[in-house]
C-alpha cells in the first residue's frame, strides 16, 4: 500500500515510476502531442452538437446525466428498467436506452436527444405534431429519437419496418397508429429536400 503511494503513475499509459523526474522524461518522450488525458470519472461527450466535458460518478446512468445533471428533459423515465423506450437517445447513430447505459462508459460518444432533433429542423417534429403522435406526451421524445435513428438508417421505411422499429416503445395513451403516418411523411419530406439539393 505504502509502496504504491510513492509511485508515480503515467496518466497516459499507467506505467509506474519511482521518481517524478523519470515520469516527466517518459511522458515527454512517449506521449508528446497526445491530448491531455482526462482525470478519472471525467468524460467527454458531444451532445446535440455541443461538446461537454463532465465529471461523472460511476453509478450514474446516461439518463441521470442528461436529464438530471445537464437539464435536458427529453429522455423520460417511464418504466425505469429497459422496457419502454421512453428514455431513448441516439448514441453514435444507434438508438439506445439511456436508463440502461452508464454515463461513464459514454466517453467520446456522440449523442442526440429529441431537443437536438427539433433544433436541427428535422421534419419529424412537425409531422409528429400534425399527426397527433402525442397525447400526454410523456413517451413522445423516446419515439422521436427511435424514429430519427430509423430514418437515418433506412430513409424509406415501410409500415412493417416502422412497427418493428417502434416495437420497444410503450405509449400508454395508445398513440401508436399515428407514428407510421408521421414517420413516412417525414421520410417523404426528407427525400424531397435531398432531391432538391
Amino acid at each position, binding site marked *: 500500500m505504502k509502496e504504491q503511494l510513492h509511485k508515480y503513475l503515467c496518466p497516459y499509459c499507467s506505467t509506474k515510476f519511482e521518481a517524478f523526474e523519470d515520469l516527466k522524461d517518459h511522458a515527454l518522450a512517449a506521449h508528446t502531442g497526445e491530448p491531455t488525458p482526462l482525470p478519472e470519472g471525467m468524460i467527454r461527450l458531444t451532445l446535440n452538437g455541443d461538446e461537454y466535458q463532465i465529471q461523472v460518478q460511476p*453509478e450514474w446512468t446516461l439518463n441521470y446525466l442528461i*436529464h*438530471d445533471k445537464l*437539464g*435536458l*428533459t*427529453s*429522455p*423520460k*423515465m*417511464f*418504466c*425505469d*428498467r*429497459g*422496457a*419502454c423506450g*421512453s428514455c431513448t437517445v441516439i448514441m453514435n447513430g444507434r438508438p439506445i436506452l439511456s436508463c440502461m447505459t452508464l454515463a461513464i462508459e459514454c466517453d467520446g460518444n456522440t449523442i442526440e*436527444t*429529441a*431537443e437536438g*432533433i*427539433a*433544433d436541427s429542423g428535422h421534419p*419529424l*417534429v412537425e409531422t*409528429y*405534431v*400534425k399527426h*397527433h*403522435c*402525442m*397525447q*400526454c*406526451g*410523456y*413517451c*413522445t*421524445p423516446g419515439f*422521436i429519437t427511435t424514429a430519427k435513428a430509423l430514418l437515418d438508417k433506412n430513409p424509406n421505411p415501410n409500415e412493417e419496418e416502422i*412497427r418493428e422499429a*417502434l*416495437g*420497444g*416503445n*410503450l*405509449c*400508454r*395513451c*395508445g*398513440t*401508436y*397508429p*399515428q*407514428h407510421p403516418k408521421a414517420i413516412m411523411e417525414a421520410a417523404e419530406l426528407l427525400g424531397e429536400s435531398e432531391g432538391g439539393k
Partner: protein
Amino acid sequence: MSVQEEYDRMIEMEDNIEFDKYTLKDFDQIGKKDVRRLDGTEKASGRAEYTMDVQLPGMLYLKFMTSPYPHAEIKSMDTSRAETLPGVRGILRYDDPDLPEVADLGGHGPTAMAPLPKVAHFEGEPVGLAVAADTEDIADEALRLVKVEWEERPFLLDVEEALKSDAPLAHPEDFPENNLEVEHLEAHGDMEKGFEEADRVLEFKATRRLHTYVSPERPCGVVRWNGDYPEFWLKHQRPHENKRAISSWFEHIPMNQIEMHMLYQGATFGGWTQFYWNQGPMYCASVLAKRTGHSVKYIFDRRGDFYGGSMDEGNYYFKVGFNNDGRILAVEAKGHFSNPQWEGFGPGNHFEDNTRIPNLHAPRKVIKVNKGPNTAVRCEQLPNTMSFTLVMDRVAAELGMDPIDVAIINDGAKGHDMDWLNERKVEAGFTPRDSLKECLEKGKTAIDWDNKWHPPGANKLSNGKMHGVTFSWTHEWDDSCGSGEIAMRVERNDGTVSILGMRCDNGVNAETGYCQIAADELGMRLEDIFYRPHTDTGFFPMCPDSSTNTGVNGWAVRHCARLLKAKILEAATSPRAVTQRGIYPPHFPDIKPEDLDIKDSVIFVKTDPAQKLSVAELVGPSAEAGPLSFHELYGAERHPFSAPLFAHAYQAQIGCYKGFRPKFCRQVHFMEVEVDTETGEIEVSNVVNVNDVGKVINPDSCAGQQYGGTYMGAGRALFEEVVHDPVTGVMLNGNLLDYKIATIEDCGPIDTHLVETQQGYGPYGATGIGEDIATVIPAMLAPAVYNAIGVWIYEFPITPDRVLKALGKI
C-alpha cells in the same frame, strides 16, 4: 324516487338542461380537422415540462419505506443508522410529533387519513418512514439501514374468501366487524315476475383480475416554502381538490397564500389522482421541506405506481331472463368487488341507462382485501361495460341471433322504450334522432358486418386461425357532471385573446378545443386565441378525470367568449375614454353593439362591412404611460386609453350519472380476432369504433381517444393482470417487464368514425369521448373469442393459457 320524480327533479336542477339554444349558425374552427395542437412542439421536442422534470436548487429527494407484508403493524423502528448517514437531511417517522393523526389527503373527496400510517394493509404500501436526502440513492440507502419490528397479521387477497364468516379482518381499524365495506343496490321492476315471464333463463359467472393504470409519469410532487407561503408542483388531475386539502394542513394555510403548479402530466387516467391518501406523500414532503429549509421532491418508483388498480376487479354473477325474440325481461347482475375506493358504479348501471329491460337487480358488494386500493381507471364504468357486453352478447349467442338485433330490440332507458326516450329528448329541447341506428349504419358498413358475422366456430382462416367478430354498444360517456371556471382577456397591442385557466392536461388536447370554441364564439382567428395555463390563476376548470373537458369546460369557454364578445362590441360603440382632457368618441359612433359583429378578428358593421376596426386597433398599444395608454403627446388622434377587456364565466352541472339525465347518444364498437387454437394466442385483428359525440369539437382529438382507448382496451383484455403471490401476499409483477401493456404490435387496424346527433349535454349538443373506448373494448374480447372458437371464456384477461384451458387442451 320514481323515474318521473327523478326526471322532474332533473328539470328543476338544471338550468342548462335545454339543448343549446344558441348553437352557432356557422361552425368554422369547431369541428375542423388538422387544427394544430397547442402542445405539439413542446411535447415532440421533449421540452414539455412534467413534475418529474422539476429540479430546484438544493432540492432534496423523499423516499418512503414500503411494507414487505400484506398486512402488518410496525411495533418498533430503529432509524439511528439512517439518521447519521451522510446526505440524509430529514427523517419523518410515523410517531413524529409534527404528524397529525389524520389529515385531508385528497382523493375522491375530503378524507381523514394518517399521512404516514403505522399499519400496512397491503404489501408495498408506503408506511412508517420517509427519508429526505441529497439524492435518491442516499434516501434508498438510508431506508435499507432502518430496522423495523413488524407484527404480521393474517391477510386476504380474494373477495370470496373475505366474505366468509370466519375470514380474518383485512382492515380491522376501519372495518372491525367483517370485510364487507358496503353494499349498493341498483334495481327496478319485479325480478320474480321477469324471470317467470321469460322464455329462457341463463346464469353465468365472470371474473376480472386486477389491472392497473400504469401512468407513464410515476407519482411525484415537489414542495417549497417561500417563508410562510408554500409552493407546490403536483402531478394530479384535480388541482382544486389538492388546494383545498393543502389549505387544511398545518392548522390552515390561507388559500390565497398557496401557489400551485400543474405542469404537463404523464397521464394518470384517474388512477393515482383518485386514491385517498394520494396527498400523503405531499404532506410528508411539506413537513420535511419546512423543517429542513429545502425544497423536497417525492418520487415513487415504478413498483410504487402499481400501488392501486382499477375498480372492476372482482367476480360477477349473472342471471338473465329473456324471450325468444331477443327481448330481455330481467337481469340480475351481482358484483363482488375488491377495494373500490369510492362508491362508483355497480354492474347494473348500463342496463338502466341503455335499455328498456323492465326488471333489474344489481347489487354491488364492496369488499376489503389486502391489496392496494382500486379506483376509477379509465374508467369507473368498467364493471358496467363488462356486464352489459357479456349479457347482451350471451343472450344473442343463446338465441343464435345477430347481437345487433338484440341491441336494437332492447334499446331504451330506465326500463322504457325508445318512444319514452324520444319524449325525454323533446322535453330537454333536443330534436330526437336515433343515435343507435345512425351509429350502426356507419359501423356495419365499416366492418362489413353482414359478410363477416358468422355462427360461432364457423370461420377457419387460411392461416389456420379461427376468426371471430363481435359487436357491443353503450350510451354516451356520461361524466357531464362537474364545474369549471375560465377567464379570458384581450391582450393589449395585438388584440390576441388569452384564455386563463389552471392547466390540467392529460393529453386529450382539450386546450386546443377550448381555443376552437372561443375562436368561433368571438369571431376571431384561431391563431389569435391561446390557452394560457397560468399555473395558479385561481380559475380551475373541471379536471379531465372525467370526460368533462368539453361537457363542462366547453360550456364555460362558450359562456366566457360570449361575455367577452359583448364587452368588445360594447367598447367599440362606447366613448373610447373619458379623461381629464375630455371625452373621446366611440370607434363606431351612433352604432349599437348589436349592429356589429366580429369575423377574422375584425369588428365590422353588419350592414356596411367596409366600416371596420381590428380588435388590435380597438385595444390599442401600451406604452410609457403604463399598460393602458400612451401619453397624449402626439395629439388627440392617438388612443387616450382603452379599458381592459376581461371576462370570466363558469359552468356547474349535475351529471347524467347521478340519475337525473337520460342519455341520448349511443356508441358502437366492433372487434375482430384471430385465435390460434394450438397456442391459445389471440390477435385483435381489426376494430371499428363509432362514437356519437353529439357535436365534434376537434375530430383529431376524438380519433385520438378512439384508437388510443382501443390499444389500452386490447391490452387490458389480452394480458394486463397484476399478480399476487397467494402465500406471501406479495405483488409479483409490479414492473413493465412482467406486467405487459399493449405495444404497437398488439392491435390490428383501428377504424374510427364519429356521429353528430347533437343530443349531448355539452355545448352545441356535444358529449365526452375519452372514457368510452378503453372501457368498452376489454369485455368484447369474450364474445369475439366465443365467435371464433365457440367457447365462452369469462376470466379476464383472456390469456393463451385460459384459451387452451377452455378448449380442454391443458
